[in-house]
């Protein structure tokens, strides 16, 4: 891109895809914003009218909103902590020359290939079922009461499922970062008298900081909108205990047929996601600058 002509040609060539992407984003967003200002309920067709911020007022003052906001943050935060710490530990393990490393790596990566719905079903019916589940069998054979996960610890159960799904992603990214750590640096630290723990905290962890940032940013984007795991297992309950923002929007739109209210909820979710994103980028995004 050195001459003016080639710069212009580049812009012209890339314009169609940029315009298409822009429309792809702006049309649904614009329509959602428009709907959010309407009284628009599918049970009363033809009654649509402009009502300003009433939908927002209802959504934001609803106690379900604050409960689901809290659930969303707890879910995202817990899964991030579990996957980052677990990912580092698994990455460190898989970076060692251990027996069967190739097979182990595939096993560790495989949960990522399972679609969320199937993942949730497996956990619900095969593992966490209080009567026939694997965990219940372990508990009873050790003489304990089985835990009814989805009744007594529903949010914890969701967190475990989602963390299991996302652990491979974190492991994969962190493992590649670990593999790019210069062996000389570790040896230099060894010569400097650093033990394995000091090497981890002074050399390995700083080296991983950029990869950890990437994991946190990408996972946050996806974890803010966890839906299938909740839909398949608890349906947001009991009560509101596993309802996150995404699920709340769904209940507004499809269980109460309130398109206007759901749109307002969607816009609130978009704004919240942006707040979280700005916060994250401020906090850890500086790691991405070389």
């Amino acid at each position, binding site marked *: 891109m050195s001459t003016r002509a080639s710069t212009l040609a580049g812009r012209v060539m890339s314009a169609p895809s940029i315009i298409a992407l822009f429309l792809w984003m702006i049309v649904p967003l614009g329509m959602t914003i428009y709907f959010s200002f309407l009284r628009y309920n599918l049970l009363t067709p033809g009654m649509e009218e402009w009502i300003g911020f009433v939908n927002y007022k209802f959504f934001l003052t609803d106690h379900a909103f604050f409960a689901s906001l809290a659930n969303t943050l707890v879910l995202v935060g817990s899964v991030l902590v579990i996957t980052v710490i677990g990912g580092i530990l698994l990455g460190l393990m898989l970076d060692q020359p251990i027996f069967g490393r190739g097979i182990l790596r595939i096993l560790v990566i495989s949960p990522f290939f399972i679609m969320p719905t199937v993942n949730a079903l497996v956990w619900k019916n095969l593992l966490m079922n209080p009567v026939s589940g694997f965990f219940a069998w372990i508990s009873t054979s050790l003489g304990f009461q089985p835990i009814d996960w989805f009744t007594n610890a529903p949010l914890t159960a969701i967190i475990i499922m989602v963390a299991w799904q996302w652990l491979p992603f974190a492991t994969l990214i962190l493992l590649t970062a670990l593999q790019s750590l*210069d062996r*000389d640096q570790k040896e*230099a630290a060894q*010569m400097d008298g650093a033990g394995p723990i000091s090497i981890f905290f002074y050399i390995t962890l700083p*080296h991983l*900081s950029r990869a950890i940032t990437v994991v946190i940013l990408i996972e946050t984007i996806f974890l803010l909108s966890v839906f299938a795991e909740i839909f398949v297992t608890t349906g947001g309950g009991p009560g509101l205990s596993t309802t996150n923002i995404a699920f709340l929007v769904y209940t507004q739109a499809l269980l109460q047929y309130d398109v206007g209210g759901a749109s307002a909820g969607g816009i609130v979710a978009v704004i919240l996601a942006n707040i979280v994103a700005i916060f994250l980028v401020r906090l850890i995004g500086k790691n991405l600058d*070389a």
Partner: protein
Amino acid sequence: MGAIRLENVKKTFGNIDVIPGVNLEINDGEFVVFVGPSGCGKSTLLRLIAGLEDVTDGKIMINGVDMANESPAKRGLSMVFQSYALYPHMTVYNNIAFGLKMAGETKAVIDEKVRNAAKILNLTDYLERRPGALSGGQRQRVAIGRAIVRNPAAFLFDEPLSNLDAALRVNMRLEITGLHQELKTTMIYVTHDQVEAMTMADKIVVLQAGRVEQVGKPMDLYAKPANKFVAGFIGSPKMNFIEGDYARARDCACVGVRPEHLLLSTEQGDIAATVKIAEHLGAETYLHVNADNIGPMTVRATGEVPLSGNDRIWLTPDPERIHRFDKNDKAISN
């Protein structure tokens, strides 16, 4: 204090003998250079001394104590890596201070030592920078600084100059030599470059395939190579080897003559030759010639020599300075 003695040090990887057994004495304060072609085991030997590889067998005596099974930190040595291996997320200050911090020194002691090292190495202005913002030569100095502050029994250098450009390499060569004269600490330096070996070393160890071929002062190796390998490796351009009738007439399998010990004449001499290529460097001239009945040879003539391709010349080896080798490549003393 840093006297190091290797007793029958062996290293095998799988069933390959990388180092079949090395005995070596390094005196306190000596500048020792391990030199040899790539893959000769010189870096492995250095890493064995450093403790970064386990010895298969043998003793590594550092100041009279066998350290062969101790961790690298306990041996009291410090190392400068070919890639420098600086910690990229730490400032120059913290890079140099890291070893002291690990040793549990107090802040005041660390500060004094780091600033002192920075002064010796002209790094004072760069202490707050990260390695990424430094030039190659400066990084090299930080790596040396990191080695100095720990006040080691000996410094180990693993091809430290090979990532620098030619001009900087000459500079750093002088700086390291100067540093050795100032600190008077034992230094072990690994290189494949015989020029570095010749210019820096008190003692050169020539290695080939994990075996020590010869140990000695640079000029001793130059004047009295123990075998054909050392003769060919030390000195640039390489020594000419002449076999056949010429060697048989002198009771040996092979005669070696350095390019600088050939008397050049355009009229008469022992060996007739045709110039193929003449490299004029100003101060000296390298002539690549094809000698009759012998083959290619190299001649080094001082000053400007008005010769070019296809000129006929005659060469006479300096009889005092020819080297004779038997059929096992061992040198025959004159």
